[in-house]
């Protein structure tokens, strides 16, 4: 069996008195595409931020590529791509300048891939970041996360603001990138149809713990209904 690429065990995270994650356990195998489902405020973003070492859980352990997420090495970080929910790039830079700046940090930056993505996602490279729409910003963030061909791709509601054309293209890219036993993808979403299209496994977050985690096919076989209905049933249970 593969060693988990992303491993969270006993994660407890609260903001003041508000408890968000209550002893959460989750492991994502190498080469897996895991869709993370949960209602608004369920803690999907907190889970992702803990997984990346952006925020520190009060208890529990997070390991990414075998390293503790909080003290991740530069080498491990160069193998991770991340699309945040709230994108905060430098507004005074032009898109091309942000690409050049980010590229300078990654030794394995793929210029050809980036050029192709710019064309396919119709990204205005000459525009400044500041006045870009949320959807355009999301495209830039996706491009920056993919440019160095990461081994782990973590996406926090990546398709929420994309137009139908860009969304379809983006999901296609995820499918292409997710080669078996090579690249791991963890993404949170509200759109169950997106998840059904690209994910091979699913984790449902409820009350600060993973209420269900397994292969998507298994879930469908167990419930005999579509993912959206299953999610609604679990939520009301």
């Amino acid at each position, binding site marked *: 069996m593969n060693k988990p690429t992303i491993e969270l065990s006993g994660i407890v995270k609260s903001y003041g008195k508000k408890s968000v994650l209550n002893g959460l356990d989750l492991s994502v195998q190498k080469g897996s595409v895991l869709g993370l489902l949960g209602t608004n405020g369920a803690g999907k973003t907190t889970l992702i931020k803990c997984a990346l070492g952006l925020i520190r859980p009060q208890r529990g352990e997070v390991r990414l590529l075998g390293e503790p997420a909080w003290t991740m090495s*530069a080498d491990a970080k160069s193998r991770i791509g991340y699309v*945040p929910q709230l994108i905060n790039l*430098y507004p005074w830079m032009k898109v091309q*300048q942000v690409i050049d700046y980010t590229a300078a940090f990654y030794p394995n930056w793929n210029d050809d891939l980036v050029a192709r993505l710019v064309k396919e996602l119709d990204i205005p490279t000459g525009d400044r970041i500041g006045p870009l729409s949320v959807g355009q910003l999301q495209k830039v963030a996706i491009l920056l996360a993919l440019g160095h061909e990461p081994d782990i791709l973590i996406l926090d509601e990546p398709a929420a603001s994309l137009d139908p054309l860009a969304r379809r293209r983006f999901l296609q890219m995820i499918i292409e990138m997710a080669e078996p036993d090579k690249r791991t993808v963890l993404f949170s979403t509200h759109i169950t149809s997106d998840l059904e299209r690209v994910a091979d496994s699913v984790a449902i977050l409820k009350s600060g713990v993973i209420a269900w985690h397994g292969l998507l096919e298994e879930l469908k076989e167990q419930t005999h209904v579509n993912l959206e209905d299953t999610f609604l049933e679990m939520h009301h249970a």
Partner: protein
Amino acid sequence: MHNPYAQVILTYFRRPFHSVTQSLYSLCFLFFCFIFFVAGEHVEKHNVLRPFHLMLLIVFFAYWVPHLKERFADARASLVPGFRWVHGMVAIVMAAVFSILLPGVTAPLIGWQCLGFFSITILIFGLILWITLHPGPTFVLIVGVGWLSTFLPTIQRGIEQIAWGYKPAHAFILMAIGAVLSITGMIRLFQLNEDMPEYHLNIVFPKNGRSQFSDLQWRKIEKSYSRGWRNWYANRPIVTMIHHARNAADSNWSKMRRWHFKTITVWSAFILALVFNLAIKLVVYFTDSNFSATFSVFMPTLISAIITVMIPAAKNRHFSYDIMMPVRREIYLKQLGGYLAIRHVTIWGVMMAVSIFWMLIAAVKPSPGFLAYGIIYSIAIQIWMFGVTVWIFSFRKIIMTILIMYIAILPTATLILTFDAQIMIQRRPLITLFVCCLAAIGLLLTWRGYRRWLVADLD
């Protein structure tokens, strides 16, 4: 409680940011009233506290009026029934309380005349209202110059003459101008809608998202910066940043320089220092030279300290982007901190050099002792402010940061106000020991701050 007026008033108490800052101003205000009330005769000799009292009101207006604009420059103002009327009425009552009633009540306590004092406050309120409606680079300039000018003896004397009631005609003219500015400003504010340019102009609370107007503004700016030297000037810091990011493997300087943040440039600091010294010289042309020298020495102290405080605030939103780059957390923090320190020293150094050079050529001739102590104090305050900034921002809590920074800046302000006072000159060794202690605490806080940043959430 369903009374809409009460609900609007309660928003000022419910929001932690508002309630804390307002409590702070109220406490300071009451404290000054108390001092004047119980020790009026003693305070009379140190009349610098009176402009301070006025300054508290100015600070309140400068904080409250932009918030007021934020209420009206919002879609809800047009869509929610009665929104404009209710918010407008509360705003009028608050404006009346803080620009007329409060000064009117407190004026006798501090030995000022009611009419004289509120003629000044109503004028300031009107000015701040119009500046807030049409913000721009002038906003910072006017507020800054206005604030600094209250320390000038000539301006202080002028204000006091009016405030004491010695010049009722002047007071009446000021009040009439202030009333016209306030009323027209209020009317304009209550009518704000998307079609008005000032709806979109807000530098104090920047609007999130974009609008057709802001798109047009961006395009206009882009067009003017797309060619020639302006294009080169606008893109130069970014090109340099990219160059350093590429060069980071070979150079330690590039390792730090790649985390560049957009603040004042060295050239801007140079020009700012030059303009400031020139302005000071012009304003205090008829006053004593010591005052000019005090400001020339402490201007770099204040400005470079304020710039240092602004940098982490500007960087705050981008930590999550930076920290995901392939660099270890502690390495990133060391490089960023190193760059912050170098930038601080550079800006302070440039401004101080300009000020000293200016004093020499403008024949202010400060004594060597004055200059030496001034520079020592200035360096100590820079270390202190740097340490406090690094430490307090690691908590990433806005209210706590404002409170601590407010307290931390007090030693700086006190030194500026009293540097050449006789009592300070007599107790130089003691004061020097005090500033050295501040610097030592600053160093400790820098170290403590770094340790805290290592475990801080950078989301």
